[in-house]
């Protein structure tokens, strides 16, 4: 990204490139958080609106990406009136061994299954796990976006990924045995 820091902040960042680079991962983050296309789109709109209004105040050009994701996450939190991120007392800081998933589950994965599984994660895990899989951020950056310590990011990731594997495995078992047809509506082709 062509960009320049000035005394007035990062106003010389190439806006076009900024949009091109981040609107899709921001949407995917918003979709995973909100579990709703319309809300995800609104979150992205809100994020870029705030960028247009306040982005020039950002002094460190290297923080643009983190700023955008943090802004989207805060907008989501604000909408959900969710304050669990401030509650650390129930956090178990230990990392756990991931549940082993059979290769057949991996082969059967598709976009719908992944999005459904992410949407069924506990909210405290959904944000870090989604950011992990978007592959845009270091753990330190994820910690900045979610405003929690790096250690908490890692413990939530550890548990969230394990929970995700459980969901995927159960979904695959149900799909194979045809016991429960996922959450698909009957009238969908």
């Amino acid at each position: 990204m062509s960009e320049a820091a000035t005394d007035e902040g990062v106003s010389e960042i190439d806006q076009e490139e900024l949009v091109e680079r981040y609107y899709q991962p921001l949407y995917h983050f918003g979709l995973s958080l909100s579990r709703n296309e319309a809300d995800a789109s609104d979150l992205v709109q809100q994020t870029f609106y705030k960028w247009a209004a306040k982005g020039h105040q950002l002094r460190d050009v290297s923080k643009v990406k983190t700023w955008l994701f943090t802004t989207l996450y805060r907008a989501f939190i604000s909408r959900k009136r969710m304050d669990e991120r401030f509650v650390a007392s129930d956090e178990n800081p230990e990392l756990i061994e991931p549940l082993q998933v059979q290769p057949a589950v991996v082969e059967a994965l598709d976009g719908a299954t992944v999005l459904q599984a992410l949407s069924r994660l506990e909210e405290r895990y959904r944000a870090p796990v989604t950011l992990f899989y978007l592959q845009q951020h270091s753990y330190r950056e994820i910690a900045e976006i979610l405003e929690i310590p790096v250690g908490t990011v890692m413990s939530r990731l550890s548990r969230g990924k394990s929970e995700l594997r459980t969901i995927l495995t159960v979904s695959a078992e149900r799909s194979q045995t045809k016991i429960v047809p996922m959450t698909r509506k009957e009238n969908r082709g």
Partner: protein
Amino acid sequence: MDRTTIKALLGLYREGEPDARFEEAKQAAENDPELAAWWAQERALDQAIARHLQAAPVPRDLRARRLRTSVNESSTTHALGRPWLYAAAALVTLALLFGLSRSAFQEKPLFANYRDEMVSFVKLTPSLELESNNLPQIRSFLTSANAPADAQIPPEVAKLNPIGCRVLRFRGEDVTLICFKREDGRLAHIFAVKRSMFLHGAAKPEYAAAGDWMTASWTNGDYNYLLAVQGDRAAAEQLLRDS
């Protein structure tokens, strides 16, 4: 470091992360074939999840909606003496105008990826941009959206009742999605995208299963078509028998 901790760390391993425990866990895996095999499987799953998440379709009108909001809200809530706001809006407009052209210089995407993404999208019961039982109205909407509107609907599909349409994006190109209701109450989805998107393309339908869905793809005129139905090959063939 015990084996459980090593596996926990390997599950979070990322190249370049400063935590020294990662390298220790990695070295343990390099010296333990069983652990290495476990880790390889773990990474394959992570890569598959990441790939599918990052490929989730993005609403086609997202950038345009953001621009409208940005311009409107800026003009009402901020001082007019901020030319950078207008410059930003102008640059975003440029992004809208020229964003599509970038794809022309990129490598052609794989048709299999397109097929998988489109099928996974309709599995999620997508909302439609236009709900209508009137095919000319649907075509009119698609024309106004500058999306493939003159798609050749197979005769047997055209006999079904349309229920609406939506425009999707795939690697920078518009994809038309028209949904029809089948006799059994389930849906048939027709996708149309520029033929030049793919190297792949045959006039006769080629069938491929995608989980419990069946797809058929073919080219006709300027477009590459994809039919997706839940069911077996016979369900798809029935809809293409006179094509």
